[in-house]
């Protein structure tokens, strides 16, 4: 396995080149901004889904010409990516599917719509109610119609069923990859894992993509079988929750591994819970309904209450034999910041595990301050492990 050498910028540049070639051949590109985007609709339309969420500091300065600095870095970076002219991928999107998740995003979308054709789906935020599902099903249907009109195609039920099968296959493979790290010691460190996953999320052809995921999985399996370890068995095993799970905004994750920890499980934005939940496709059910049900179950903090996240955290801490939990919220992200209190209650009081909450942004300005916390957290875990060994 190669070490982390490629920057996110290089990943974007490389992908933009292949994407341009695909477009020359008549392929359409649809941008997605969040885990709530039903990518199966895009696949069923024969188009290429591309994640356009901002994960780097660079476009933020440009975005702050329009947005106030007191917005979360994700909102600013995503908008900046569209207007700064530095992202090679963004201009290639024929249209974008987005959702009314948090306030910052949905208000930013009003401005983003000026840059690219957009379909903003109205995401209900009390997902457990039946009215919410009915409404969301209609929104998914509207998004399908939008794509048909925008891309000049017809999406049939068969197209949808095929896309669902591939989407499920994709999620299954990604979940398997996450679970390779259940081993202690494991075959790959957290940073290298998110580096590879960030690269792999960009694909032109879904079938090739599935094959690449298979290959990555085989290579990790081989390392597991041959007992080739990326870390030792006594390094603190960290579960990562909340935000900050992708290359470009991975500074805290890097610090954790620099300070001797290893991030073995990610829950939250871009984490394992975004892949393990499958679309349950029943023969007699409208595939739009099946898709809608699955995407309404995504456990972002914009939902209330977001109870499934806590059940998932409990299970994952046990499965991955976690020594400590780090919960990261971006500055000015109200949903994750407030929900963090409940995460703390669960982790510290119920699971009795060390817990560290971090609020930061994409800049490097606070790296040394963060290092003290992370290093202190590792000391706290080491003390706990010594104590547990004694008892």
């Amino acid at each position, binding site marked *: 396995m190669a070490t982390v050498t490629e920057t996110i910028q290089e990943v974007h540049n490389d992908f933009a080149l292949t994407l341009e070639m695909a477009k020359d051949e008549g392929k359409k590109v649809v941008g997605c901004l969040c885990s709530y985007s039903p990518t199966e609709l895009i696949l069923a339309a024969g188009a290429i889904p591309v994640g356009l969420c901002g994960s780097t500091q660079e476009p933020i300065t440009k975005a702050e010409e329009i947005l106030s600095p007191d917005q979360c870095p994700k909102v600013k970076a995503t908008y900046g990516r569209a207007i700064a002219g530095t992202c090679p991928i963004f201009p290639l999107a024929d249209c974008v599917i987005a959702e009314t998740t948090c306030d910052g995003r949905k208000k930013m979308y009003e401005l983003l719509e000026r840059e690219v054709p957009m379909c903003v789906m109205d995401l209900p935020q009390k997902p457990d109610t039946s009215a919410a599902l009915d409404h969301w099903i209609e929104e998914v249907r509207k998004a399908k119609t939008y794509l048909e009109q925008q891309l000049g195609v017809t999406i049939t039920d068969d197209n949808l069923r095929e896309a669902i099968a591939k989407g499920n296959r994709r999620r299954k493979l990604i979940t398997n990859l996450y679970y390779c790290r259940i081993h202690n010691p494991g075959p790959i460190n957290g940073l290298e894992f998110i580096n590879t996953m960030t690269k792999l999320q960009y694909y032109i052809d879904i079938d090739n993509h599935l094959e690449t995921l298979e290959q990555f999985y085989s290579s990790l399996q081989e390392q597991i079988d041959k007992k080739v370890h990326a870390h030792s068995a006594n390094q603190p095993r960290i579960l990562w929750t909340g935000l900050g799970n992708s290359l470009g905004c991975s500074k805290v994750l890097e610090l954790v591994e620099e300070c001797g920890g290893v991030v073995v499980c990610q829950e939250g934005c871009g984490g394992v819970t975004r892949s393990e939940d499958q679309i349950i496709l029943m023969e007699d059910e409208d595939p739009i309904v099946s898709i809608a049900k699955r995407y309404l179950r995504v456990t972002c903090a914009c939902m209330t209450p977001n109870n499934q996240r806590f059940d998932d955290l409990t299970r994952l801490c046990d499965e991955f034999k976690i020594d400590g939990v780090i919960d990261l919220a971006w500055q000015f992200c109200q949903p994750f910041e407030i929900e963090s209190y409940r995460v703390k209650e669960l982790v*510290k009081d119920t699971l009795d595990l*060390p817990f560290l909450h971090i*609020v*930061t942004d994409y800049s490097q*300005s*606070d790296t*040394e*301050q*963060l290092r*003290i*916390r992370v*290093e*202190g957290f590792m*000391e*706290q875990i080491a*003390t*706990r492990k010594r*104590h547990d060994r004694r008892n």
Partner: protein
Amino acid sequence: MTQKKKHYFVGIDAGSRTTKAVLLDDEGNLVSAIRPTGINVGATAEEVFGDVLGQVDATPRDVKYLVGTGYGRVSLEFADTTVTELSCHALGANFINPEIRMVIDIGGQDSKVIQLDENGSMVDFIMNDKCAAGTGKFLEMVARKLETDLENLSDIHFESEQPCAINSMCVVFVETEIISLLARGESAANIVSGVNWAFANRIGNMARRLGIKEQYVLTGGVAKNRGLKDALNQYLGVPFAPLGIDPQINGALGAAVLALRSS
């Protein structure tokens, strides 16, 4: 300190504003030194190291183990090991009084609340966000704005008749707020007391978020501000346990204790 040949254990805490050294001998006697950190952390650390060695007439060779801590710990090339000040504050407080279960440390650039066990191991902590709110730098700015110094800031707190309501904990915005209060004719004492109360609320809430554990102590340079200490005591409702040493050297003491335990 006796004159016979001894082994020494040193802790150096290179903080953002001041660098502190504590030297312990194998009987637990301590000497200490403090210097402003300045721009060259490594050089300042060597100087405070020299200061404490000078006080016991020893050379670096007499030192069995040296632990570096604080924000500038990575610059301490001569340290045998480094550890965060979070762990060191726990060890320092435990050395002074094993009954202590919590340390509130307010330093130059950050503030932290640390819980510890009976062995002096840090078991949990919480730190302020990345800005000067609730730190020594914040008080320095207030003192400058009121054309006084930190020592006087501590005294005039008690002259206040009616503390002003201060809403801003940001060094930039509080400056504006102080200007407005001065323009309204508020006394310096009322402003200072208001600032201390706002400060105490912020730190007190941080401590409550972690959970108050008795007994607890206040450390760091800001612990020398009697006005703030008084406000914080009143806000939390439980008096601080006596520390018995300069509150500024607790981190360095913890590092020296670790040096003693590590050797």
